[in-house]
């Protein structure tokens, strides 16, 4: 009965077939999963690691960990949720590693905090999209990691509250509270 209830609570996973084949060592199928999620993972990682860190380096590590960890993936969530869990953990590792090197307190990307100016934009970077994204990412970098993860997962990546709670292993109420505070702080930073 409990198993049926658990099975019923997991949404239909469009990647299930590919994951089952990849789990058996089919690299071509895993390559297809990389194709499906590469842009999203690189984009997500960009919001979670310091600017000095190449997001594609971290994203490559995410997929490497996912390949190695496929055999332990039991399908109790969708593959997408599980992949983002791997991405979140990988980003945290890089964040902590970078913090130790910079000798900054953990939690914020302090070298890009609110007291430091926004990153210089070269004359070539005149595209409005780049400028707008950089401005937002600069503000995101000033948030505590737990708030930054949640606000990006909800407002940028479009995860449901329940998925975020599952991904981060926290109650839905905590997701809502941290989301509120993250947005409130971002508003102050973006208007500063």
């Amino acid at each position: 009965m409990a198993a049926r209830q658990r099975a019923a609570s997991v949404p239909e996973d469009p990647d299930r077939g590919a994951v089952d084949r990849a789990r058996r060592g089919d690299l071509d199928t895993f390559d297809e999963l990389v194709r499906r999620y590469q842009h999203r993972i690189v984009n997500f990682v960009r919001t979670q690691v310091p600017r000095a860190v190449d997001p594609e380096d971290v994203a490559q590590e995410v997929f490497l960990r996912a390949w190695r960890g496929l055999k332990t993936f039991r399908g109790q969530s969708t593959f997408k949720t599980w992949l983002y869990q791997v991405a979140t953990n990988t980003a945290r590792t890089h964040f902590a590693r970078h913090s130790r090197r910079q000798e900054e307190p953990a939690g914020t990307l302090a070298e890009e905090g609110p007291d430091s100016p926004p990153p210089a934009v070269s004359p070539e970077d005149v595209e409005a999209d780049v400028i707008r994204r950089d401005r937002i990412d600069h503000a995101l970098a000033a948030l505590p990691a737990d708030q930054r993860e949640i606000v990006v997962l909800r407002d940028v990546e479009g995860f449901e509250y329940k998925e975020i709670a599952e991904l981060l292993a926290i109650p839905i109420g905590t997701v809502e509270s941290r989301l509120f505070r993250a947005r409130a702080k971002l508003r102050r930073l973006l208007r500063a």
Partner: protein
Amino acid sequence: MTTNCETLEPLLARAAEAPDAWPLDDGERARLSAHLTSCESCRDALAAQTEVRALLAARPALDASSAFRVRVRQALEPEAGRAPSLAELLDFRRWTWRLVPVAAAMVVATAIGLATPLAETDADVVAMTEAAAELPVAAALYSTNVTDESLLALMLTASADDRLGAVPGEAR
């Protein structure tokens, strides 16, 4: 914001996601609506939540470069062809599930063995005794029914071809 306002933060966060149709249940909607009529701070907070959500939703995405997928593939290929490391072999999660059928078979075999006595009827005992009688005399060395004197006599007088059943002195 007052303590009462803080308790409404989750509702404000949700309401900001659909300003024209708050994704709240009836009770939550009524509670929030009533509070906003008298709390300017929360009205400002709701506006801030809505503004930031819209900004983030419109954030231009950063795409992976055209070379990204190739570099991931190149990094994975040595992984795909290699044998599992010692750490991976010792990872209980890899082999525990594969032992489940083995464990189940052992449980079944044990249950069958415990449920099946060695000899259930007198006929079985007689059959076993008759079979024992055909054993060579050397089998007496392994019998607990033979006294030391009988065993000595047996060894001194019987030949190797004699059967237990034909030799006097062997207790049945």
